[in-house]
Each structure stands twice: as C-alpha cells, then as structure tokens.
C-alpha cells in the first residue's frame, strides 16, 4: 500500500503521490471556479479526516470532538480576522484548538471506551449551546462576519495545511514515538509497563491532531464569510471524519484521504442531484459501507488482491 510501508523504497508510489499533488496544486490554473470551491471542501475534509485518524486510528480512542476543534479555529478567525494578518490568524486558530485539546486530553484521557466518546460529543454540544447563549444574551449578535479571502488563497492555504499534516503523520508514524502510539492502541497497560509515557503521548498526539483541525477551521471561516455557532459546531463535522477514515481504511495514511475525497464528492453530487433524497441516500451509503467494508476501501482492495494472488498460486 505504497506509503503505508515501513520503507522508503516504494518509489513508484512516491512519484504517483507527487504527480497527483502537482495536478491538484495546479487546479486553479485549469479548472473552473466551481471545481476549485469543491476541491476546497474536499481538502478541508481531508485535513480533518487525516488529523482524526492520526490520533484515533492508532490509539483506538474514538473522539467525536472534531467539531469543537474545527469550530475553535472558525471562531478565532471570526474574532481576530479583522485585526491580524491571515497567516497569524491561522496559527492562532491552530494554537487555540490544540490548547483546548490539551485541556480536554488532560482531564479525559483516563476515561475508557464509550465514556470518552460521550464526553467528546458532549463537549461539542456544550460549546455550541454556550456560545449560542453568549451571542444571544451577552453580546447581542446572532453570528459574525469574517473578512473573505479569494478562493485561490483559501485553496492554497488548505493544501499547504494538508501537505504539512501528511508529512507530520508520515514521519511520526515511522519514529519510535509512532511505535509507542501504536502500542497504546494494542495494549495500553502493557505499553505503560514497558516504559511508554502513555498519558503524555496520548495528550500530545491529541493536541497535534487538534492543531490541524483548528488551522483548517480558521481558513474555512474566510471561505464561508458568515458564521454562527450552528455552522461552526456542526455535529456533522464530528461524525464525517470517523466515517471517511473508516470508509477509506484507518491504517494506511492514504485511507482517510481517499475516504474524504469520495464522501465529499458524493455529498456534493447528491445535494445537487437529489436534494430531497440526499440525506436518505447518504445515510444508506453510510450503513452499507459499515456493513460490508468494516476494513475500509483499501482493506477491501487488499483482500481482493490477496484472493487473486491465492488463486494464481493455486493455478501454478
């Protein structure tokens, strides 16, 4: 599976990935406005899905707090977008998000299994309702305007975030830190006994994953230009990355990327073609993909490959 391997040796996969990146990066030059806007959403979901899988994939802690981190980035952009230059705003959004993740991580990561899931989802709803109340009663507004950036700037910022994220994930996975992270998912107690700083590693990874979600949120706010708590803390953002990562396959680095591309395109396609049945079809696809592809698309491809190889083996 190309980059998923433990060696640098798989050159064709690298060349293919770089070519694809060049093709995507040049998109504003040859593609129409609609395509660029669609690609911004695709890139946004890729960032969220890859960051989600970076933490939840190896550790097995299912976090539904993505929308909280993403929304923190959005709100940072809305508050500081007018006064600070954009790169600083993005950095600030990312830092605010990872600060939140550090806090949440420090108090919750001893929660096991489903309690962690519930807590993270509760966090999103808490932030949504609190900010909603704050805006209505204290500040007297029902939404904020964010200074817009051109589609190209948004596109390249998002692409830049994704590239940095993929590199970070790639190198972390090959390091001893990555191995330690993996060992937490396999057996947390055994990992702790063999000298892995379980809590520190979990919290750091959680913060790194939130860092990129926050950055994506800060960029995305300038694309949407108007935001309110219901847009910023949309529960859909909690579930979509989970689904995308599972659909694509959690283990390979490219799994969540492929899942994000397919699901975002599918969502757009269904919304424009079947506006009345969009949710119905989308939900059915979710259920079916969980039923028949628990290992994800890449897992399915691998299974088919193995089967073909076995058949060839049997014939020879």
């Amino acid at each position: 599976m190309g980059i998923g391997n433990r060696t640098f040796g798989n050159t064709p996969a690298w060349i293919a990935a770089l070519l694809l990146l060049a093709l995507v990066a040049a998109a504003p030059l040859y593609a129409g406005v609609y395509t660029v806007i669609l690609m911004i959403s695709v890139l946004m979901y890729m960032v969220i899905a890859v960051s989600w899988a970076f933490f939840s994939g190896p550790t097995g802690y299912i976090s539904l707090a993505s929308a909280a981190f993403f929304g923190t980035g959005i709100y940072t952009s809305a508050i500081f977008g007018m006064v600070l230059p954009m790169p600083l705003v993005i950095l600030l959004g990312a830092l605010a998000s990872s600060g939140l993740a550090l806090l949440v991580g420090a108090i919750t990561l001893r929660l096991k299994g489903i309690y962690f899931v519930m807590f993270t989802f509760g966090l999103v709803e808490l932030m949504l309702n609190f900010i909603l109340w704050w805006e209505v009663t204290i500040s007297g507004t029902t939404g904020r305007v964010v200074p817009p950036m051109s589609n190209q700037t948004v596109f390249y910022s998002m692409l830049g975030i994704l590239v940095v994220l993929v590199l970070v994930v790639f190198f972390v996975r090959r390091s001893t830190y990555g191995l330690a992270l993996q060992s937490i998912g396999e057996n947390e107690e055994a990992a702790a006994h063999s000298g892995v700083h379980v809590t520190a590693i979990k919290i750091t990874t959680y913060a790194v994953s939130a860092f990129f979600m926050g950055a994506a949120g800060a960029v995305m706010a300038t694309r949407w230009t108007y935001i309110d708590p219901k847009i910023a803390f949309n529960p859909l953002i909690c579930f979509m990355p989970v689904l995308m990562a599972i659909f694509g396959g959690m283990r390979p680095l490219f799994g969540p990327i492929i899942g994000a591309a397919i699901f975002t395109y599918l969502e757009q396609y269904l919304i424009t073609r079947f506006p009345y049945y969009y949710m119905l079809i989308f939900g059915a696809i979710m259920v079916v993909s969980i039923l028949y592809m628990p290992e994800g698309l890449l897992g399915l491809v691998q299974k088919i490959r193995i089967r073909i190889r076995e058949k060839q083996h049997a014939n020879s």
Partner: protein
Amino acid sequence: MVTFLDIIISGLLLGGIYAVTAVGLSLQYGVARVLNIAHGEFIMLGAFLTWFLFTTFGINPLVALFISGLILFGVGFLLYRTLFTRLRISAETPGAFEGNSMLACFGLLFIIQNVAILCWGADIKGYSFLAFPVSFWGAKFSANRLVTLLFALVICLVFYLFLSKTRLGKAIRAAAQDPETAGLMGVRINRVLALCYGLGALMAGFGGALISMSYNIHPTMGLEYTMIALIVIVLGGLGSIPGSLIGGLVLGLVGSIVTHVEPGLALVAYYVIFMVLLLVKPSGILGK
C-alpha cells in the same frame, strides 16, 4: 412559594419524559451494546406517528401511544435482527462492534430524519389535547402534562416489574451481565438482544408520544433528546431502570430551575453536569 412549587412540578413533568426515553436508551446500550445515536429519531417518529394518528384518524393520543410504540418496536426488532446482528457477528472485538454500530446508527439517523421530512414536511407541528388547566396548591398546570407524568411513571414501573419479575426479564438481565455465558445457559441471545433493541425503540416511541401531547414537534428534534437521554443514563448509571427514573427526574428539576433563572442556559447546564459526572463518577449517582 408558588413559584417554587411551579418550578418543582414543571421539573418533575419534564423529568418523567426524560426518564422514559432514557430507560429505552439504557436498555439498548446496557444490554444490546448499541450506543443508539438515532434514539432521538425514534422518539421523533413516535411523536409524529401519534400526531398523525390523532389529526388524521382522530385516535386518542393515549391510544395512539401504544400503536406507535408497537410499530417502533417492530422496526427496532427487525433492525437488530438484520443490521446489528450482522455487525455483531462480523466484529472482531466487542469494542469494534460498539464503534461500528454507533456509526451505523448515525447513518440511520440520516435515513429516519429524511423519511420523516419526506412524509410530513420540515415544519413544526403540534396539536391540542387535554389542554385545560388543573390547579393544586395554587400552582396551575395543563392537564396533558399531568397525564404525561402519570403515564411516564406507570411505564417505568411496569417496565421495571417486567425486567425483575418475568422469565424474559431474567434472560435480559443475564444477557446484560455476560452474553456468552447467558447463551450457553440456553438464552437465545440473538433474539434477546434484538428484543432489547426493540424495547428501547418502544420506549422511544412512548416517550415521543408523550412529548407530542405537550410540546411542539419537528423532524430535527431528535438529537437533543438523544443527548438528554444519554446524560440521564450516565447520571443514573448504565443499565439501571430506577437509576434512569431518578436521573430523569433530577435532570428535569435542574432544567426547570435553570430555565427559571436564565432561560437559555438549560442545555448548557445539562452538559456541564454530564461532563463533570463523567469525570468524577462515570458509574452514575447510584453506582458503586
């Protein structure tokens, strides 16, 4: 003094509904191991079915409650027999099943909500039933809310007796403790788990029907009730019916007190309680 009584009683009325929906979710998660994110959608369906039966056929909502509950029981039972049983068998670990079934429920949430919008439109609906005032100790309430509370308490009581006194109830409790051993002891485990999921949907249907008698309903109301039910079962302890009842009443009281002080903050208060509780005592107020 009257306002104090007002707050307490309206809190209990709210709490009764919370309790019924939470008992359902508790059964689905505690025994069938499905964290049913779509629970609120079943509640919504129960509410709409009751509304539909009342406004179209003029069926008394207290009768429609049982009809919509039974319909939802069938839907839930079949869903578990097909979808969730398959997921359970193919999952490598119980943890994987919990994760996958939660995501499948998220898909179901989409499907059910869309079907409801297609059938009944996205508008807010409501009807008037037993809407005359009843007063006691100086506090005035509409009769439908008292009937709601009464029904909620009776439903919880009957359900509790069913689980603690009948053979089937014993099988369910055994399956909750250890599904594999229960299976070895002759409990038909797939059927019992499906029954639990179905009963959870039944309670959601009852809860939804009760909600429709005193509140407005709309197709996207589900998620809020799902979250409230989740909070209640954590408050009362997973899998405990008296716990859910007490948790529901407590949360209803909190909601009504906070609403009295600062109307916009009720949900915020619920989540604060929820998160503090998860951190301090995830086994619930009655847990050991």
